[in-house]
C-alpha cells in the first residue's frame, strides 16, 4: 500500500563511490572478505587487484598453523560450511612473502588476525605492527573463531572478555583495529558497544554462523570437526539484521558489512542497513571476479535509483508508514 519513492535515475558515471571507513578513505565500498581471498595472488589471474577497494587477508596468527583434517567444506542450501582451521603462513612469512605484493597494489590492506589465546592476540598485533607499520591499513581482529578449541569462544561472546582483548590489542599497535564479531550471540549490540569502548575503530559484521551437516549414507558429519562456519546467501538475513541493530544502537561505530553478498543489490541492502562498506566472501570461490561484478552492479543500481553517493545510501532506510488506525466497531 506504499508507493515507491519517486526516484530520478542518474548516469552511472556520476555515481560517486568514494567513501571512507573510520578515517580510512576507500575508492569504493567493496572489499574482499577474509579467508575467501587468500593473500590475493591467485586472483591476479582473473582480475586487476587494483580495481578492488581493498581486501582482508586470510587470518594470520603469530606462528604458522596447519589446518584441520578433511573434509573441511560442504555445501548446504544457499550456503556452505567450512572448517579450514585457521590455517595460515604465520605473521613472519606473511610480512615477508605476502604483504609486499598487496602493498604494491595501492589498495586498502586489511590484515585479519587472531591468536590462540589472549597473549597470542596481543603478540600478533605487535608483530604485524612492528613488521609493517603504515603498510597495513586495518588490523581486522577475528574474535569469532569457531575452530579454535579452548577459551576462544568467550572472546566473541562475552562482552567483558572482548573488551579486555580489544583494549590490549589497541594498545599494542598504531594500526586501527576493526573487530570482526561472531553472529553466534544473543545480543550483538552489547558486543559492538564493548569493543567500541575498548577503542575499536569499527566492526566487521558478520563472521559465519556455526552449523552442521550429516551424510546419512556414511552416518558421519560432513566435515571432520563436526561443526563448521555457515556462509553464503543463506545467512544474509541474519547479517543484515545485525548490521542494522548495531548501526541503530551504536551510531558512531563504522560497520563493514558482510554475509551472503553475491550481487550489487545485496551490497546496497547492507549499505542501507547502515554499513559504511562491505566485503564479499564466499562468492569469490565460484566467481573470482565476484567483488568487481558486485561493484559494477552496485553502481548501475545506484544510478537507476538516483542514489549519487555511498553516503546517501548508507542508512537511508525509511520506516514503513503506519497503517490507518483500526477501531473496533461500536466505539
Amino acid at each position, binding site marked *: 500500500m506504499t508507493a515507491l519513492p519517486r526516484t530520478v535515475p542518474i548516469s552511472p558515471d556520476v555515481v560517486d563511490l568514494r567513501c571512507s571507513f573510520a578515517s580510512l578513505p576507500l575508492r569504493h565500498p567493496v572489499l574482499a572478505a577474509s579467508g575467501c581471498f587468500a593473500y590475493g595472488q591467485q586472483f591476479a589471474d582473473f582480475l586487476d587487484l587494483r580495481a578492488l577497494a581493498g581486501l582482508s587477508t586470510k587470518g594470520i596468527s603469530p606462528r604458522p598453523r596447519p589446518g584441520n583434517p578433511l573434509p*573441511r567444506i560442504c555445501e548446504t542450501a544457499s550456503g556452505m560450511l567450512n572448517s579450514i582451521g585457521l590455517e595460515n603462513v604465520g605473521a613472519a612469512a606473511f610480512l615477508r612473502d605476502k604483504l609486499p605484493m598487496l602493498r604494491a597494489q595501492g589498495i586498502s590492506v586489511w590484515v585479519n588476525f587472531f591468536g590462540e589465546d589472549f597473549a597470542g592476540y596481543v603478540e600478533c598485533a605487535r608483530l604485524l605492527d612492528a613488521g609493517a607499520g603504515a603498510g597495513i591499513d586495518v588490523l581486522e581482529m577475528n574474535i569469532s573463531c569457531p575452530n579454535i578449541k579452548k577459551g576462544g569462544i568467550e572472546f566473541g561472546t562475552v562482552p567483558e572478555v572482548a573488551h579486555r582483548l580489544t583494549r590490549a590489542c589497541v594498545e599494542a599497535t598504531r594500526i586501527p583495529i576493526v573487530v570482526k564479531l561472531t553472529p553466534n550471540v544473543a545480543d550483538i549490540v552489547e558486543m559492538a558497544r564493548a569493543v567500541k569502548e575498548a577503542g575499536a575503530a569499527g566492526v566487521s559484521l558478520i563472521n559465519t554462523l556455526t552449523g552442521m551437516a550429516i551424510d546419512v549414507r556414511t552416518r558421519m558429519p560432513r566435515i571432520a570437526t563436526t561443526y563448521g562456519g555457515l556462509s553464503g546467501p543463506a545467512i544474509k538475513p541474519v547479517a543484515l539484521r545485525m548490521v542494522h541493530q548495531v548501526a541503530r544502537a551504536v551510531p558512531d561505530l563504522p560497520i563493514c558489512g558482510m554475509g551472503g553478498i553475491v550481487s550489487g543489490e545485496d551490497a546496497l541492502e547492507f549499505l542501507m542497513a547502515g554499513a559504511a562498506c562491505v566485503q564479499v566472501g564466499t562468492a569469490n570461490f*565460484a566467481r573470482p571476479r565476484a567483488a568487481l561484478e558486485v561493484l559494477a552492479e552496485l553502481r548501475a543500481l545506484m544510478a537507476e535509483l538516483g542514489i549519487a553517493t555511498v553516503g546517501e545510501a548508507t542508512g537511508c532506510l525509511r520506516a514503513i508508514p503506519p497503517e490507518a488506525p483500526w477501531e473496533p466497531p461500536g466505539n
Partner: protein
Amino acid sequence: MAPTQFIARVTANRRLTGGYFILELSGQPTDGGGSVAAAEPGQFVMLRGEWGRELLNPRAFSVLHVDPDGCFSVMLKAYGRGTTRMKALRPDDSMTVTGPLGRPFPGPRPGVAQILVAGGVGLPPLHFQARRAHALGVATQLELYYGGRDRDDLVLLDDFAGWDVRHVLATEDGSAGTKGFVTVPLAGRVADARARGEAIELLACGPTPMLAAVRKLALEHDVDAWLCLEEQMACGFGVCLGCAVPVHGPQPYRYCCTDGPVFTAKEVRWP
C-alpha cells in the same frame, strides 16, 4: 598456463550406458587468457550452471577431451544436486567454466609401461592420457585396468581398442571381464612385472577404495604410482583451502586443486 573463467555453450549432452553422460562444451576466454584447449590429462575444470543461489559452488570435472578450436568435453554421472542438474542440460544452455586447473599425470616415458587403473567417473583423465599417447604414437606402452559394477558401468571401451591399448576388465557381477575388483588382476600384473624386472608405473583414478588398493600395491612392490584424487572443492584455484589432502612431508596437507589432483602414492598420508 594460468586458469581463466569464461562462459561456454553446451553443444551436446550424449548418454552412455550405466548412467554416464558426456557433456560437450564450446567456449573461449574473451580476454585472450589461456584456454581449456591447452589442458593435459589429469587437469580439470570447474563447471557451474545457472543454478541461482541454491548451489553456490562449481563442481570439478576431469577434462575428457579437448579440441584445438576450444571445444572440450567432460564425462560424468548424476550423483548429487549439481550433477543431476547437469544431466538435464540441453544444447545452447550455458555454463561457467574455470580452467584448466591442477597438475597433470606424467606422460609416458620410454621403456616404462604405464598401467592405467580406472573405475567409475575416474575414467576421463585416463581416457585422455590414452588418446594423447595414441596421438604421440606411444599407446602401445599403455595398458588399461578398468573396473565397474557391471558391463554397463564400463564405457568408451571401443576408443581404447581403436588406440591399441590393451585392456583388462573386471566387474563386480562378472558380466564383463573377471568377476570382482580390477585390483585383483592388477595385483597379479604388478607382482609379475616385479618378478620379471619389467619397468612399470601406475596411473589411477576412481573410487577411493580402489585408489587405496592401488596405493597399497604400489608401496608393497615399490612401484611408482600416481593417484588422481577427488576432494570436495569450493574454488578450484587454491584460495578456499577446502580441498586439503593429507600428505607426508614438510607440511601435513597439500591441496587437491593446485598441488594435485594427481599425487604420488608415497606422499599421500592415508591409513
